[in-house]
């Protein structure tokens, strides 16, 4: 009996090895279909014909996290997918074995071996890896989001002609969210960031300044903001309890700015009958409690970057900050759940930012301008940092 069992197990093992071999060629063309995004499959007929090429022309290396993180990786990936489908390019994503410069470089190498003409890397964690890669692979072009190449110790910054670096003006998205929240009648706000990485800090500072701007405009007496970094990007009872405590303490809306932290905040908001502001992408579908989301248009910018590359106008050697003037950031007004904040109000503040009325846009403080959220000069808003 036991021998029979062993024999069967051995057979299963062997056959699975062969099955693995047999599947290999099929698997390499798979990611297009497997692509985990909420998007209806594009009709075959509308797709541009795929050129006869070896390998995958557009490669993406994932940052820490999964390809469907509803944030950075997914936004980037959607941009690549959309571009490749419109232009008949082949594309694939590579997941590094771990979060380290060496593993990122290895993944980049793998992508280039796989035929990549352009490699897209989302996230500032890639900065040192791209610094190395720009010299190692001069024939390949790189698009790095939220970062610019430099050495690991930040001593040397250098960007070669095969690298296009994109930053986002998160403080403007945060500003819009803070402004909209106060304009909509909320005076007790909260900010729960993930880790204090530059992008999250910019969101937070912008949020404070937006609330302040609206409060001054409306002549309010006081607006309170609790300000906290959770130290993780996950949904935990801890984050739920922190949010629930704030809600119980009177906080009306929390700007949840840290991936899955948002889900814990939504759970708390649901129980408390309070509100949440989402981040990065439109999160209104995740919960009824989400009144709006501070978005940055990852997909659009990746699309434009790739478009430039294939049109022979690659912005190599350029480090660019995409802001509101190029629709790089914004709120999804159509899916927002505001009480009184109207589309006209939104367009007014949006236009004011674009036009830089009274230096509104150019005077917004970013992550490096002040040391802490409490250092942002405010007259109405009081910021309380919660450690």
């Amino acid at each position, binding site marked *: 009996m036991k021998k029979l069992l062993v024999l069967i197990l051995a057979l299963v093992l062997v056959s699975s090895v062969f099955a693995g071999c047999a599947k290999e060629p099929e698997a390499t063309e798979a990611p297009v279909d497997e*692509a*985990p995004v909420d998007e209806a499959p594009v009709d075959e007929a509308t797709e541009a014909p795929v050129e006869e090429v070896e390998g995958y022309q557009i490669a993406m290396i994932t940052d820490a996290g999964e390809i*469907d993180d509803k944030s950075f990786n997914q936004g980037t990936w959607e941009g690549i997918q959309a571009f490749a489908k419109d232009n008949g390019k082949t594309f694939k994503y590579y997941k590094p074995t771990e979060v380290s410069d060496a593993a990122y470089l290895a993944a980049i190498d793998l992508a280039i071996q796989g035929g990549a003409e352009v490699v897209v890397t989302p996230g500032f964690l890639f900065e040192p890896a791209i610094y190395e890669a720009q010299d190692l692979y001069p024939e390949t072009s790189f698009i790095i989001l939220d970062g610019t190449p430099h050495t690991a110790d930040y001593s040397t910054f250098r960007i070669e002609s095969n690298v296009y670096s994109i930053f986002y003006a998160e403080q403007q998205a945060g500003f819009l969210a803070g402004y909209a929240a106060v304009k909509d009648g909320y005076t007790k706000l909260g900010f729960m960031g993930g880790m204090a990485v530059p992008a999250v800090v910019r969101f937070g500072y912008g949020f404070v300044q937006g609330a302040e701007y609206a409060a001054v405009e409306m002549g309010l007496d006081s607006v309170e903001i609790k300000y906290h970094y959770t130290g993780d990007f996950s*949904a935990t009872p801890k984050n739920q309890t922190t949010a629930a405590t704030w809600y119980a303490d009177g906080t009306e809306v929390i700007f949840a700015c840290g991936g899955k932290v948002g889900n*814990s905040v939504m759970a708390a908001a*649901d129980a408390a009958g309070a509100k949440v502001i989402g981040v990065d992408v439109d999160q209104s579908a995740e919960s009824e409690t989400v009144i709006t989301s501070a978005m940055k248009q990852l997909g659009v910018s990746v699309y434009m970057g790739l478009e430039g590359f294939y049109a022979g106008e690659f912005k190599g050697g350029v480090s660019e900050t995409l802001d509101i003037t190029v629709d790089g950031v914004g709120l999804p007004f159509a899916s927002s759940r505001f009480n009184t904040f109207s589309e006209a109000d939104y367009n007014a503040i949006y236009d004011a930012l674009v036009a830089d009325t009274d230096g509104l846009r150019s005077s917004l403080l970013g992550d490096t301008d002040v040391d802490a959220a409490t250092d942002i000069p405010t007259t109405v808003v009081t910021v309380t940092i919660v450690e």
Partner: protein
Amino acid sequence: MDILAFLIQQTMFFSIPLLVVALGGMFSERSGVVNIALEGIMIMGAFVSMMAISVLQDTMQGQGLLLIALSVAALAGMAFSLLHAYASINMKADQVISGTALNMFAPAFAIFVARTVQETHTKDINFTNTFRIESVPVLGKIPVIGPWLFQNAYITTYIGIAILIISAILLYKTKFGLRLRACGEHPQAADSVGVNVYKIRYAGVLISGALAGIGGLIFVIPTSTNFSATVSGYGFLALAVLIFGQWKPKRILFAAFFFGFMKTISAAYSGIPALKDLDISSGIYKMIPYIITLFVLAISSKNSQSPKAAGIPYDVGKR
């Protein structure tokens, strides 16, 4: 809202999953099988039951659905723990390695299957929380106790307490409990009087699988709006609770609530005026449960109550 009532309500979200999972670990270890796979089993239980919820929630909501999900979680946990039982009881494998294997397998499996099965092709399984009880009829209106225990609650809280009581009775007042404990202390002696050690150990591991699976679901429901293949290390925390609780139900109850309460304080102190004014770093609150665990282990390790045969595969020939 009354701050104390609020804190107690929040503590339940931390403590009940810890309690249930630690009790699961207790059954396994008291039968002689070390089960560090609790984390993986929690993930598996939560994953399968969340899938069930996401499929069923269009047709049914509320407590009925939650009860179904809990049974699904228990079954999934049992099925998954069978792997551990087979490896460590029949194959006499190293139980720590077998447990580690399950811990590594579970999240990968959950992500893979969720992406394959779901129409959206994402690893996150969304659910609508229709399970929260604003106030339990009648009981919720009792002064003092009502807001503490019967408002803003989940049915899982009461199930967790019931599991505790049943576990204590099962372990100390039944023939099965005596045999289970005997197999964990001296399986050869148990065998010599006709107890089937393999069967008892299988039972121990299966119970732990069922409870850990339930614990996984209890963990996710109040704290998120979706499940994304993680329980944030609470399975390992439950192991700490188990050891802190010295493998005894009553002490595990105490340990789970102590851990839960300290975690609540560290997350909630910013909203509690009395604690905010103390101006103590939240790091201190976060450290306390672990420091006390180390302290208790340091002074109690000499006469530790850990089952003597836990972790040692049963070998009939050994005396």
